[in-house]
């Protein structure tokens, strides 16, 4: 303890003697640690933003799509073939106890016209529970209900983008009549903006109408009773997997799929997608981190370099210390503490710099950043380890000097 305090004092004194050099040496570590923290913050911020986007699709959602995404032979991807029917959706609702809500829809790109404005958008026929499953409320007007579904009413709810394209500012879309494939529809609501999906699709660029209306009046007679996708919520978020298993079992039975055959549908959960994107952003974070770590390594080499110079420069001092009774471990310890002091003071300054630059990045570049205390502590401790690692060689050189040679050194 006494030795530690004395050594620390001696180390600080030695570093103070060469303020400029100590500061420059530390700069490597400062930049290294700062870069690590800034990079991790950017990575984690990006990850948080992606997670936020995934949550915007609707939380705890299962998507049932026709076709198998992972199958051998000539199979198409999701949505490629229409093997799912409205009857499947009804059966899921009826026979799967873990399922709370079910909605299904069909989509088609169509031209939407209002007055002299027109806009090509996705026309989506979806059952009324769609708004509930997707947790997607309106800002103006209202959504359609089961009655509109039963009677195939010609009502439409607009996504924000469509409303903005067809209607000028100050115009209220609610109550107006628009034409879709020459069929007049009454606009009854405008949806809250939801933004882009993580694959860059504008979710607000859509017109929604009851499924029955779409099937009978817009989408045409082919593929009657089939759906593009079924969305399902579980009664409880913990029962999501259970719901998925029940749906798979039910649909295999309904579609008469033998044991050795692959499914003609896929059940995907948004959690899986969140996991996938998380591992993708983890890869990015690791990449950034390894680049930043290299600068920390370079900083460590800088410390080693300066300490080697310092050992040569202070050879005589080492000789004097040995003459008055310093053992080689005293000398070793002294230089090691000097190295650690350099790297840890640098690490502390770097941590502060990293937090500040993360803040600046999110402020100036509008990138989301997230400073995690674990990353700050980790970078700081790692800088200490760098000090020990790179300080050891010079310190050992110093401790192995012969006192007579060291005393005579000019």
């Amino acid at each position: 303890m006494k030795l530690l305090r004395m050594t620390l004092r001696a180390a600080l004194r030695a570093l103070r003697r060469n303020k400029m050099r100590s500061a420059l040496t530390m700069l490597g570590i400062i930049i290294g640690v700062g870069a690590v923290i800034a990079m991790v913050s950017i990575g984690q911020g990006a990850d948080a933003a992606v997670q936020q986007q995934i949550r915007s699709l609707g939380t705890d959602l299962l998507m049932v799509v026709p076709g198998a995404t992972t199958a051998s032979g000539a199979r198409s991807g999701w949505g490629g073939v229409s093997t799912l029917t409205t009857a499947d959706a009804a059966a899921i609702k009826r026979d799967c106890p873990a399922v709370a809500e079910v909605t299904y829809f069909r989509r088609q790109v169509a031209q939407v016209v209002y007055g002299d404005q027109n806009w090509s958008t996705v026309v989506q026929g979806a059952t009324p529970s769609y708004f509930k499953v997707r947790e997607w409320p309106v800002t103006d007007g209202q959504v359609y209900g089961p009655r509109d579904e039963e009677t195939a009413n010609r009502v439409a709810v607009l996504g924000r983008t469509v409303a903005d394209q067809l209607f000028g500012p100050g115009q209220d879309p609610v109550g107006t009549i628009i034409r879709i494939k020459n069929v007049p529809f009454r606009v009854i609501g405008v949806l809250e903006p939801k933004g882009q999906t993580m694959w860059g699709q504008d979710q607000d660029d859509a017109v929604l109408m009851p499924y029955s209306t779409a099937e009978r009046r817009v989408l045409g007679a082919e593929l009657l009773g089939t759906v593009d996708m079924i969305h399902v919520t579980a009664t409880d978020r913990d029962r999501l997997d259970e719901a998925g298993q029940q749906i798979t079992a039910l649909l295999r039975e309904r579609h008469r799929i033998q044991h050795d055959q692959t499914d003609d549908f896929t059940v995907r959960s948004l959690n899986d997608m969140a996991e996938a994107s998380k591992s993708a952003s983890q890869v990015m974070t690791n990449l950034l981190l390894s680049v930043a770590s290299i600068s920390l390594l370079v900083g460590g080499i800088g410390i080693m370099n300066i300490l080697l110079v310092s050992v040569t420069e202070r050879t005589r001092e080492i000789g004097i210390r040995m003459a008055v009774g310093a053992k080689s471990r005293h000398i070793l310890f002294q230089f090691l503490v000097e190295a650690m002091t350099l790297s840890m003071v640098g690490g502390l300054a770097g941590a502060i710099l990293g937090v500040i630059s993360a803040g600046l990045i999110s402020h100036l570049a509008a990138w989301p950043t997230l400073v995690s205390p674990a990353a700050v502590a980790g970078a700081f401790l790692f800088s200490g380890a760098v000090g020990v690692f790179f300080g050891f060689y010079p310190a050992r050189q110093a401790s192995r000097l012969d006192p007579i040679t060291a005393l005579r050194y000019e």
Partner: protein
Amino acid sequence: MRPPFSAHVLRCNDDSTNLQVGTPREDTMNSPLIRVHDLWKIYALGDVEVEALRGVTLDIQAGQLVAIMGASGSGKSTFMNILGCLDRPTRGTYQLHGTDISGLTADERATLRNREVGFVFQSFNLIARTSAVENVELPLYYGDTPLAEQRPRALAALAAVGLAGREHHLPNQLSGGQQQRVAIARALVTQPSLLLADEPTGNLDSETSREIMQLVRRLNREQHLTVVLVTHEVDISAWADRVITFRDGRVVSDVQQEMRHGDAQSRRGPEAAPA
């Protein structure tokens, strides 16, 4: 066990030796402090072997002030390094307080240097940009002196060499003579039994040299401190009780002499002399 350094230095010469109860110095009053027998040191310089010492045998009694003279290359520096436990002999034995040095590890020799030997060098060898008192504290730091005692002892050692009031000066703010006094204080702060001085006045003018020698002589007389000093100058060797001359790694003359500088002169001390 040991009383503080200042107590010795400031005490009158007559009772000081009596008060050093239990210190090794008293034990060796009868047997020599240093006993060297057939000491050889052979260096390998490339393919050539250099015999720096060729069978040196001598004893040095505790309390003696010994001057070692000789041309460069005569082996006197090698001899001093071995006496100071910085180096080990190739052959032969060196006993300090009856302990054979050649059998000790590097760490054990470091401990011995710390406790038993003080070094004074021609070029002072103070640690640069480090205050006088911190330089003097250095041996205490490597010894087992409690932290709280280090500063007071260092201050007392500085006062004893006449440097009270200059404790916090840096080496480059001190004159050569003052720097050498700091070095002497550092050498003696652990109360060693042996002071080794390698041309201690080599970088000083004659007046300052005389003051330093007066100080060394006074410490030798008052504290029964054994001093071995290397010098080229007859003026300096004149202060010694005994002059040993080396040539080609051997002792060629070993002369006991009367103090030519009287005790009266040395008692005046450096405090009385202009600083």
